[in-house]
């Protein structure tokens, strides 16, 4: 990682560890975050259904991407099976609600906990292997779990899928997109704050130590096995939570939604957003979701000139994701968040930047 200047206003010194460990480094940051959040809450009713549904999907994917980022960006473990855990959360929540009558708002975190358990089981190989071998092991877990979904009719309804109702709180039904958006936003904020918090704790630093040099970390007393499996567990928790939100939003969960392609998209989100960064994951989720739509309008326009483009719309969408991954890795490996930091730094240092 190259050094990014992140200057503070003059006179803002940190005099204690607590200061250095703050969630928001300056008062300005705190206010900016709160204002942004307030703006989103106030603006949500006025942006129309299309953008609302886009924002909901961005929020859901962002939660899963933040989870994956703990595993990949912070702990340095590669997972190609995140979509399977995402799917497990969706099915588990629907299963808990349909078979046991658990209230859906409770079923969501419960499903996330179940996913955590499954993630930790599949994380066990991670205790011994790393890098490539781990990538391939998680690839296997992707196939095994999707196979399980299509088989286990008691759990997922097999190939027919499962119905998932919209949640309901004391008669207040989350039955339109606006209400559901607030629910997703709530969980997204909880996730972002919880993960930022986690990363500045002892456990978070242990994750980074495991990523940067696992042997040194072990020598310094970090329990490798524990932290590797824990990282799988936490990442699966958020994948499960996001999956549950996804399932109840679409009101129907089917096996086909959770393929390896979705796993790749999750990885693309965190790479394009910036590995190891919570806000990067949100940016990346937005990028990956909006890119196909942009490409769709681009191809529609191109189709006026080259009618042959019309048939290739869906392919162009997939190609754009592949190309985005490749181009970002070659030209901006540290992601959108790095670009943003550079822009911010150049503003702050204005006459002296460049």
């Amino acid at each position, binding site marked *: 990682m190259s050094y990014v200047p992140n200057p503070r206003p003059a006179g803002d010194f940190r005099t204690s560890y607590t200061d250095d460990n703050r969630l928001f480094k300056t008062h300005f940051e705190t206010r900016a975050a709160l204002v942004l959040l307030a703006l989103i809450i106030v603006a949500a009713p006025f942006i129309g259904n299309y953008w609302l549904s886009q924002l909901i999907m961005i929020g859901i994917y962002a939660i899963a991407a933040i989870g994956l980022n703990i595993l990949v960006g912070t702990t340095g473990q590669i997972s190609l099976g995140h979509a399977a855990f995402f799917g497990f959360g969706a099915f588990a929540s629907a299963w808990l609600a349909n078979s046991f009558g658990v209230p859906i708002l409770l079923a969501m975190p419960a499903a996330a906990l179940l996913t955590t358990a499954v993630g930790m089981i599949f994380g066990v190989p991670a205790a*011994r292997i790393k890098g490539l*071998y781990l990538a391939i092991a998680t690839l296997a*877990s992707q196939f095994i779990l999707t196979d399980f979904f299509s088989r286990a009719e008691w759990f997922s309804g097999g190939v027919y899928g499962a119905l998932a109702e919209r949640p309901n709180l004391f008669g207040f039904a989350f039955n339109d997109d606006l209400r559901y958006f607030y629910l997703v936003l709530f969980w997204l904020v909880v996730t972002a704050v919880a993960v930022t918090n986690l990363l500045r704790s002892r456990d978070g630093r242990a994750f980074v130590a495991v990523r940067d040099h696992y042997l040194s970390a072990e*020598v310094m007393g970090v329990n490798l096995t524990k932290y590797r499996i824990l990282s799988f567990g936490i990442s699966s928790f958020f994948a499960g939570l996001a999956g549950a939100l996804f399932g109840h939003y679409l009101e129907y969960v089917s096996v086909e939604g959770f393929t390896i392609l979705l796993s790749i998209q999750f990885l693309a989100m965190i*790479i394009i957003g910036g590995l190891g960064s919570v806000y990067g994951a949100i940016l990346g989720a937005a990028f990956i979701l909006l890119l196909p739509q942009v490409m769709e309008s681009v191809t529609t326009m191109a189709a006026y000139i080259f009618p042959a483009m019309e048939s290739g719309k869906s392919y162009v969408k*997939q190609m754009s994701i592949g190309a985005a991954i490749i181009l970002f890795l070659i030209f901006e490996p540290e992601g959108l968040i790095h670009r943003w930091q550079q822009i911010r730094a150049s503003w702050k240092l204005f006459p002296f930047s460049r």
Partner: protein
Amino acid sequence: MKWDLFFQLLVNGLIVGMLYGVVAMCFVLIYKSTQVVNFAQGEFLVLGAWVCLALVTNMQLPFFLAFIFTLIFMVAFGIIVQTVILRPLIGEPIISVIMVTIGLSIFMQALMNWIFGNDAKRFPDVFGTTDVVNIAGLNVEVAYLLSLVLSIVIMGVFFWFFRFTRHGLAMRATAFDQQIAQSLGISVKQTFAMAWAISAMVSGVAGIVIGIVNSVSNSLAFVGIKVFPAVILGGLDSIVGAVVGGIIVGVLENLAEFVDGQYLQFGNLYTIAPFYVLIIILMIKPYGLFGTKDIERI
């Protein structure tokens, strides 16, 4: 117990396994010499098959010429992929390298779907491949025999190339230690490009063979995924291991189908069985049967 069926599946497994072995070999070649895990190996294979098919059906070339042109095309393609996409990433962390090949793989998938269509297409009958011969009471399709012969030939050429040629020696040296190889006057850049070129070319051949045996469609890329259990079983950096692993996975798949069909009635167990084996191997013997064990020092 139906022994006929059992042996039939065993033979099929062996033959399919040899093909997996060939693809696994290409995969290991790239991994061993350039430390890149190529998730797009399956797409290379499909690309070779499609190009050859297009040359035969659209351009009406004789099969032999089309085959040669496909080989040339795949060599060029391998070199371009290496220089344009992989070279900028030398020295980057492993996740970047993995992701770039994954990106390449989904890009190629979509592009090939677009250009060549979603439907499976058959090769025109080139070698009378629909015939069946009877060997020791078992019916074996000629196409399968052909693929068996070709696999053995490819493996032989690989062996000869690495053992007896100058470039093969250079490649082994680079795989052993890049810095030492470079100091001995081996161009590491060229060697990397060559590894990709050879790997792409041989995958193309495997793709054509599989295309003749079954038919050409984009789902053939699944062979590229099946390669992972094979190479993990054999050890990621062992070419012999890749062949052995490929054969074991091929046989295992067919045995799983047999057990499934006879006793369990589970439905498509055979597609998923290799992955269970993979997880088990990773737990017990992560470096595979023939792989070199990493020894790490602080």
